[in-house]
């Protein structure tokens, strides 16, 4: 049972790495907290549900479509909001309030459009029957979603460490001022990172109905807290640390559900508070107290 919980936790955690990845990319590059992240994810989920029930589109095709569309939406959103924010004195705090407002708008519009009913996609779309992995029986949709997440994480790694744009992006992450001084167009770099982050959130949303069972318009707040817990554990501003954060979260969630099931919902909240208080620089952070 222990091994089963750990294996399931790793698979689950890979998905949650994808859930946190976009949030961490935005924080790392722009030093702002996108509190509408969970709601963008929710929008991705509803788009997938709509594409499936109206056109019978496979979630994988929906994911590709959502990724592209959300990137395109991300550019104007970035230019409308972020440069203005960053001129303010306390950009981090103001961004939190602003994106909180945005998240309320998204949630309200979605509720008006589709109602508050739970929506889910049939799991058989991603394959039937369990997958046996190291003796643990896992639903096939879980393994499928985890595989997509792994691909997405690898793609982000390639983008950040193997392309010229990625080098520029990492330069902005290290120091905005020096990046500007070197002649990097930080707004172009940031806008691309912002778009990619929204795209990643959308893709995570496409698989949310499978991993979370169902989606409702109000899952944004909980998802935000979870995503924030994941990226804080895995070090803020370090997109690849998110993978470790996700897996730690997934494994502890599965262990909680196995041994203290009625208290499992407390996990992300307590994990977040505990890490922020004890080791705010995360697992792989340098010894700098940013929080």
């Amino acid at each position, binding site marked *: 049972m222990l091994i089963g919980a750990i294996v399931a936790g790793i698979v689950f955690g890979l998905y949650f790495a994808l859930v946190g990845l976009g949030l961490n990319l935005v924080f790392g590059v722009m030093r702002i907290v996108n509190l509408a992240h969970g709601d963008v994810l929710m929008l991705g989920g509803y788009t997938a549900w709509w594409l499936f029930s109206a056109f019978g589109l496979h979630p994988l095709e929906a994911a590709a479509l959502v990724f592209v569309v959300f990137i395109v939406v991300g550019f104007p959103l970035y230019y409308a909001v972020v440069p203005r924010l960053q001129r303010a004195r306390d950009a981090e*705090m103001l961004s939190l309030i602003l994106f909180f*407002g945005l998240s*309320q708008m998204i949630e*309200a*519009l979605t509720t008006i459009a589709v109602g508050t009913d739970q929506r889910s996609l049939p799991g058989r779309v991603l394959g039937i029957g369990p997958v046996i992995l190291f003796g643990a029986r896992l639903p096939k949709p879980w393994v499928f979603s985890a595989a997509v997440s792994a691909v997405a994480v690898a793609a982000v790694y390639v983008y950040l460490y193997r392309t010229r744009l990625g080098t520029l992006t990492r330069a902005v992450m290290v120091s905005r001022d020096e990046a500007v001084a070197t002649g990097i167009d930080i707004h172009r770099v940031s806008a691309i990172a912002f778009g990619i982050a929204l795209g990643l959130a959308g893709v995570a949303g496409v698989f949310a109905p499978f991993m979370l069972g169902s989606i409702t318009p109000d899952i944004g707040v909980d998802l935000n807290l979870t995503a924030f817990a994941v990226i804080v554990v895995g070090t803020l501003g370090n997109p690849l640390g998110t993978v470790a954060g996700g897996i730690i979260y997934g494994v502890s969630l599965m262990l909680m559900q196995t041994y203290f099931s009625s*208290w499992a919902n407390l996990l992300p*909240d307590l994990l977040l508070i505990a890490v*922020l208080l004890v080791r705010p620089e995360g697992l792989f952070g340098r010894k700098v107290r940013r929080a």
Partner: protein
Amino acid sequence: MRDFALPILVLAAFAVAPFLYSNELMLFNFVAFLALAQGLNIVYGFTGYLPFGYVGFYGAGAYGFALAVMHLHAPPLLAMAAGGGAALVLAVVLLPLLRLSGAYFAISSLAAAQAVYEVVSNPALEKITKGPYGVSLTAVFAPRFSYYIALAILALAFALVIWLRNSRFGLALQAIREDPVSASMAGVSVVRGRTIAWLLSALIAGLVGAVFAWHISVFYPDTAFDLGVSIFATVFVLFGGATTLTGPLLGVLILYGVYNAIGITVPQYFQFIYGALIVGLVLFLPNGLVSLLTSRGIRVP
């Protein structure tokens, strides 16, 4: 003296309102939000810490009241103290959060409120808190009396904000908010200042939660820990302008007034409008309505 004119006017208006207008629950909600907005103002306006999980204190107050009535058969006024005490205890437990800066503080306070909600609404604790099935306190139901207690709490909240605006301590808090390092160099105790503001703010929310539990007498964890309470209070304070007495007051009267006037049949429209207001305010009017006056040199209490 000018500082007292507006709050006394508002208190007097709400004191006679129940005799002129029959929808007492709506009046009660007005008073509750007026007090909550000032309570949030104490911590956000004067220290710069914005607790998204402010509703956690409200819920703790409501459940402190309910548990005292259900298990100890406490008389309502004593149970009110239990409600305020529960919020204070929660605030003390959460004191370490004040070590975190801006955004981290806001998010971890939200996580803390969610955690308290998960505990209270947990079916495993049904024997103590009635879990997700809600509590019923009809034995102490006293709508008129509890309304005036709410008004007394509002008076307390007004008085606290007036004190902060006109005292050395309030000035010290604003100095800490602007620049904690310089403030402590000038001999201001940063930790003590933030702690007092945080506890006062939590006390107000706890008392309002307790009187809410008393007034409404039947409620569920979903209502006592409704994130909407945090959202409304935050929007009212931001809209009117933090650090002033008038700002949050105007915010509640205008926005909550419009909310009630147009009707609450489709709350999503208001959720949308409030969201848009937050975005617009942060981008174009970060210091709220009163900044339109203060930036022209007019002093606003």
